[in-house]
């Protein structure tokens, strides 16, 4: 059994008395020591999916309307709030997109890491502090025994993201959810942070769900990929299989819109149009208004998930050359 199994997850946002579906029937699973990449444009529902897994959807406006999330043998959606909190930051941890603002500005970073440890383990203040120094060493913060007393504003963005990683790893989580962990960082720092995560995964066997809009990052770091479009998984496969043969026109569009240095092109190929807003109701395939291959059939009937190749699923009428 996989460590994390998300099945037929539905999430809706309340707006003006109506519930607008944002995530519609997303399913995937992640094994121990495996990295799943979820890729898609802004607003495709990838962040909400990750927050739902973590249990951070919060208050009234966003709501899980269906499906199940199983983690380590537990059905997360049926747990009580205290049971859920016992898992958060402990067996499952998360790092966020904005390292500059994700740390509390008024507390020393050592105290913030220690808070996470002492929330889940019965250890003394000084032992937690020692552990914080250890973790800072692990994420390669120079001078960890001094930096443990630094305030967040005394560190750079890259360093803060390392602190976030240290905090997330403080209780040896089985699953690490990283929501755009490198988006706000310089390219060189990006690479260092991604390498650090991969390295830590090798050492600890942590499963990682990496959310990104950057196919390059996904290709480099993930074992398998799920491409999301407007709340659904358009295509999912092992990374190598996916890039060997792209089955969904949206994935192809994403890849074509990345500039390639050694190819001289006048114009980058962009996907025409934009992601339809939540208020717009669409019949058929959600991608058909932007798809070059779309026919009347695509506009009238939504494609089911089909097996394009073994372990390579896709939601497109044209995948594999058929229109059924």
């Amino acid at each position: 059994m996989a460590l994390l199994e998300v099945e037929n997850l539905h999430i809706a946002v309340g707006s003006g008395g109506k519930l607008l579906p944002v995530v519609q029937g997303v399913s995937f699973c992640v094994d121990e020591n495996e990295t799943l990449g979820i890729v898609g444009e802004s607003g495709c529902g990838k962040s909400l999916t990750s927050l739902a897994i973590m249990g951070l959807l919060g208050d009234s406006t966003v709501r899980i309307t269906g499906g199940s999330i199983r983690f380590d043998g537990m059905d997360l959606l049926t747990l009580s709030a205290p049971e859920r909190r016992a898992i958060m930051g402990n067996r499952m941890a998360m790092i966020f997109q904005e390292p500059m603002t994700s740390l509390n500005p008024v507390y020393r970073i050592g105290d913030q890491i220690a808070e996470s440890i002492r929330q889940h383990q019965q250890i003394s203040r000084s032992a937690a502090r020692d552990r914080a120094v250890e973790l800072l060493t692990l994420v390669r913060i120079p001078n960890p025994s001094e930096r443990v007393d630094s305030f967040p504003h005394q560190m750079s963005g890259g360093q803060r993201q390392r602190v976030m990683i240290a905090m997330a790893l403080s209780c040896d989580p089985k699953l690490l959810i990283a929501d755009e962990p490198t988006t706000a960082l310089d390219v060189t720092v990006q690479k260092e942070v991604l390498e650090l995560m991969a390295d830590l995964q090798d050492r600890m066997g942590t499963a990682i769900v990496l959310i990104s809009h950057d196919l390059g990052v996904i290709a480099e770091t993930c074992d398998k990929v799920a491409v999301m479009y407007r709340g659904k998984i358009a295509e999912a496969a092992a990374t190598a299989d996916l890039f060997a043969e792209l089955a969904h026109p949206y994935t192809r569009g994403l890849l074509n819109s990345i500039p390639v240095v050694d190819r001289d092109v006048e114009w980058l190929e962009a996907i025409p149009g934009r992601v339809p807003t939540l208020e717009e109701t669409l019949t058929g395939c959600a991608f058909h208004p932007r798809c070059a291959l779309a026919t009347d059939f695509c506009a009238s009937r939504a494609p089911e998930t089909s097996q394009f190749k073994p372990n390579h699923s896709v939601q497109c009428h044209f995948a594999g050359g058929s229109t059924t």
Partner: protein
Amino acid sequence: MLAYTAKRLLTLIPTLLAATILVFLFVHLIPGDPAAILLGDTATPEEVAQLSAELGFDRPLWIQYFLWLGNVLQGDLGTSIFFREPVTAVIGSGAETSILLASMTMVWIIILGLPIGVLSATKHGTWIDQITSSGAMLAASVPTFWLGLYLIMIFSVTLGWFPSSGFPSLSDEGGITNLRYLILPSLTLAAPNAALIVRLVRASMLDVAREDHVRTARAKGLHPARVAIKHVFRNALIAVAAAFGFTFAALISEAVVTETVFSLPGIGRLVVQSILRRDYPVIQGVILVIVVLYMVINLLVDLAYARLDPRVSLK
């Protein structure tokens, strides 16, 4: 921190000097001759002129100022025209009441304003929030004198729980229980300011609650109450601390009304009476003491601000 404090204290000196000039000029702008008021309606112009000369009011204003300033620097605020006593002694007699009143008011503001603000923010959108928010709105808009009179009517006249006016010193008979005389006045004085703090705490906590680091705190699996206090409230406190300086300024002006309504022998009432009596030395003395106090409080607020927010560097 020490160097910063010393530097701030030094910069107080020119500000204080400017304040003495303003205080002196404003007081002398009050129409009416103190000598004439002191002698009453039946005095002849000659008598008035003679007393004016005795009190030194016939000299040029700038000479009066420097004489006064010279004395002030030696700790002598002059002699009250009305009481014929040193101004320091006159102020001293009102100080006990005013200091106790201000302290009790601050205690009310803190024990009412902060918790109700936190409650209002953590339960925002619920009926609890609606009740506390509209209660705060009401308390902030009610005029001090009106609230004071109503509290007297309800708690002194009808229920007979607290005395309605006056304040015997703590050293008089009754000792510490004499503080009950100050309960209604301090509540009157605290109400609008506590309401301000409630609204400020609520607004800043709702602001902070949307920040990314609060999501990080929740992701640690912390109990919501711990997130609210240790992360949200602690950051919201930075904005609230800044407001305490203004609150103090508001307290001073509202204290004048409150002390009058409750006939308290405090400094606020002393100012009002001294203005009516054209008792220049007392008015100048009291205003100067208030200015100094205000500056010190604001310095303390600044220092507290730096303690609360490590991003503020004291250089």
